[in-house]
């Protein structure tokens, strides 16, 4: 008997090359994939922030590298009335402007949420103040507030409401309020459109149910709209507070911190001291002093307002 055995062929496992094995290595892959992002963040976020913080603890001026002076800059600032005034005005500016923006923005959002003719056109118009570059609108307000050529002064004199031009930005308090007004004007679209988006997520049947339950319009707002809007309100408010507290363009374009430093925000004062004034260390210290305020505002609105039990589902305990 002749047995013929079929030729047996076994595939030889090819050993992967060194490069292929390297790319199969999870740790290596993670590093390779993360490197570009980390690099960008380090270069453009961490380094400037770190440099700013480091500068705050030195006596660097333009043209002269500084030496480490510890908290000397801060000690000096604590006794500097101009700095203390800018802290006061920053907080005041943020508080009043945020209040105004949310009051008016919410009102506008509620109006836009109704069935209005030409609704989408109106919504587009509402966005205009936000689309225009801030410096442009700041210059427009500068004209509006101009001591001689102000249109408001002109109209009120024409109508006989005032005898002479209105003082908008030439004394401390009128200037402060004028800037706050300009900031509110500019901030409303962001608030209104964000809150409108929030309002539109509320199911109309909830209002119908409340209507049948006997709720008045105010009660519907108080018990349905407001609590349902709370999460988005918290997020929008966090952003708004950050943007307002760090505002620079409006103030710098309209008053440059004047008259007599009365309208300096911390951001404008930091710039004023650091760049035109040349005191880089001191300017950086003012900027660093803003951080605790921002962290506090963020934590407050995020944890104080954002998460609610009813949003989370799952277990109640």
């Amino acid at each position, binding site marked *: 008997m002749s047995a013929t055995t079929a030729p047996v062929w076994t595939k030889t496992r090819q050993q992967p090359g060194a490069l292929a094995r390297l790319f199969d290595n999870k740790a290596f892959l993670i590093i390779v994939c993360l490197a570009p992002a980390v690099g960008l963040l380090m270069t453009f976020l961490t380094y400037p922030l770190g440099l700013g913080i480091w500068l705050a603890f030195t006596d660097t001026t333009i043209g002269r590298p500084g030496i480490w002076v510890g908290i000397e800059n801060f000690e000096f600032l604590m006794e500097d009335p101009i700095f203390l005034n800018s802290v006061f005005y920053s907080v005041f500016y943020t508080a009043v402007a945020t209040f105004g923006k949310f009051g008016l923005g919410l009102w506008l959002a509620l109006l836009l949420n109704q069935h209005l003719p030409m609704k989408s056109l109106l919504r587009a118009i509402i966005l205009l103040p936000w689309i225009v570059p801030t410096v442009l609108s700041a210059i427009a307000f500068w004209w509006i507030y101009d001591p001689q050529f102000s249109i408001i002064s002109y109209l009120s004199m024409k109508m006989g409401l005032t005898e002479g031009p209105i003082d908008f930005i030439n004394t401390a308090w009128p200037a402060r309020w004028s800037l706050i007004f300009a900031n509110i004007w500019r901030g409303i679209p962001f608030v209104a459109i964000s809150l409108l988006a929030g309002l539109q997520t509320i*199911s109309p*049947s*909830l209002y*119908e*149910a*409340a*209507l*049948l*339950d*006997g*709720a008045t319009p105010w*009660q519907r707002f108080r*018990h*349905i709209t407001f*609590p*349902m809007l709370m999460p988005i309100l918290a997020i929008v408010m966090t952003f708004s507070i950050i943007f307002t507290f760090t505002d620079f363009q409006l103030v710098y374009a309209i008053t440059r911190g004047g008259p007599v430093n009365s309208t300096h925000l911390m951001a404008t004062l930091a710039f004023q001291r650091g760049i035109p004034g040349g005191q880089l260390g001191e300017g950086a210290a003012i900027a660093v002093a803003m951080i605790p305020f921002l962290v506090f505002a963020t934590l407050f609105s995020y944890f104080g307002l954002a998460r*609610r*039990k*009813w*949003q*989370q*589902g*799952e*277990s*109640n305990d």
Partner: protein
Amino acid sequence: MATVSVRQAKKVFGSTKILHGVDVEIADGEFVVLVGPSGCGKSTLLRMIAGLENISGGEIAIGGRVVNNVPPKDRDIAMVFQNYALYPHMTVRENMAFSMKLAKAPADVMEEEVKRAAKILGLDALLDRYPRQLSGGQRQRVAMGRAIVRHPQVFLFDEPLSNLDAKLRVQMRSEIKELQQRLATTTIYVTHDQIEAMTMADQIVVMNGGRIEQAGAPLALYDRPANLFVAGFIGSPAMNLLPGRVADGGFRTDGGALLPLPPGANAQAATYGIRPEHLMLADDGVEGTIVLVEPTGSETQVTLRIGETQIIGAFRERVQGRPGDLLRVAPDLSLVHLFGPDGNRLP
């Protein structure tokens, strides 16, 4: 508890007519189901009764009082919405107590009412949960609880079971029916599901295209449908409706089948209607070819082709045929429905 009268109610959205003058009389404590295909105006009619839509014409009276210009909260009604419309930021207790809270009821009364409703609906253990933490059926019950605590004159239900799965739907169907019988509150219930309508209603109002096709007791609609629409809508599987004419000593369908007519049948008949369950297996019946056999256990549904006409039969017997086999069936002549050329039932 109250009667509800809808007299010549009309609804117009812009140039679109939704309701063309609808009349419904609902007796005290009655369970009325408005049923029809989507877009027939049944939900609109319910919302008009609730006061969520204004009334373009005619009038609606609740308990003898015309409510055309009465705001929803003063109509003494409670409504259960399709998506339940529970307030997501309130617990079950707060949801149920909301209407009383708005009416500034004393706390102990509120608590007692909520407890009572929770007990009726089996929600006692869930009072401190948020709607998110509830299953579909539990949310449904909370929505009903919110209606119950108000002791309304009329309950309105807008497709309340359509978001539930099939099994739960059957269970909630009997729960709602039982609850209504216990509370004896006038109830108007909207659905597109004719089985819900048949099983729950004291009176069914079949609507189509903004008009009422027929109103009456479920079995009356089943036994004597007034027109082709009702005949095709009520009953599952649907009635066989075969167009044709009276000829050759019987009814000749357009497909060529010759079906027997009851004695004294109207010669004007243009459509022959026979329900699947009223076809019988008979050796002397009409011969057809089996197209499909669908056994459900309790009965067997068979699709037959007679000439070019397809008809469906439902038999208690277990039909053992295969597609292509021949089967002889005969209609129960006392249960044949004949419709005239205008689609209305012939006497």
